């Protein structure tokens, strides 16, 4: 079934650890996005990609990095996590020219 998957759903780690949030989609979409959302606040675009080997920074500055080596895979990495990185991270993909974003279930990160 075509879908977009995020792992882990929940992650609690200590300061200074390296973490990677995984995002995979089986929808065949070229465009993929990472949004960050603090509780009760709006979603902020932090990274996006229009295809393989294409990555761009979003509207909100983030210390995280992303890669797009395969169409279906768009992982987000934090080299050294800090408490300020505690947030929910939402991955999404879209069809060109349609504007509809398909979201994953999100990864809730807590850095102690």
């Amino acid at each position, binding site marked *: 079934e075509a879908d977009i998957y995020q792992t882990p759903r929940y992650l609690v780690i200590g300061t200074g650890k390296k973490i990677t949030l995984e995002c995979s989609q089986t929808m065949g979409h070229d*465009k993929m*996005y990472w*949004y960050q959302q603090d509780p*009760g*606040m*709006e*979603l*902020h*675009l932090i990274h*996006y990609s229009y295809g393989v080997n294409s990555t761009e920074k*979003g*509207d909100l500055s983030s210390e995280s990095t992303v890669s797009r080596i395969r169409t279906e895979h768009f992982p987000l990495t934090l080299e050294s996590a800090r408490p300020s990185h505690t947030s929910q991270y*939402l991955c999404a993909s*879209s069809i*060109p*020219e*349609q*504007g*509809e*974003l*398909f*979201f*994953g*279930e*999100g990864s809730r990160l807590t850095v102690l």
Partner: protein
Amino acid sequence: AQRVTQPEKLLSVFKGAPVELKCNYSYSGSPELFWYVQYSRQRLQLLLRHISRESIKGFTADLNKGETSFHLKKPFAQEEDSAMYYCALGAVSYGKLTFGQGTILTVHP
């Protein structure tokens, strides 16, 4: 810079009452606007988009360029409409969307 404002964080109505979720935007070009919804324990999903001019689950939204608004309306709210609603703005060709803060709608029986 583009911006989306949803002035109400919380909105409560009784079943059968009309409901209106407000959304105002600022954008220099021709805006494309969307409403996304997140039901309890479900992922965020598209509810409707202004270019389709459609009614989904009884909800409609009209783009008012003069007032820069895109309010979401339903004449008779149902309990299953209780959810978080986000207004979003962007350019379809780019796919990037700017989201508002969201409004939590609670429909009481």
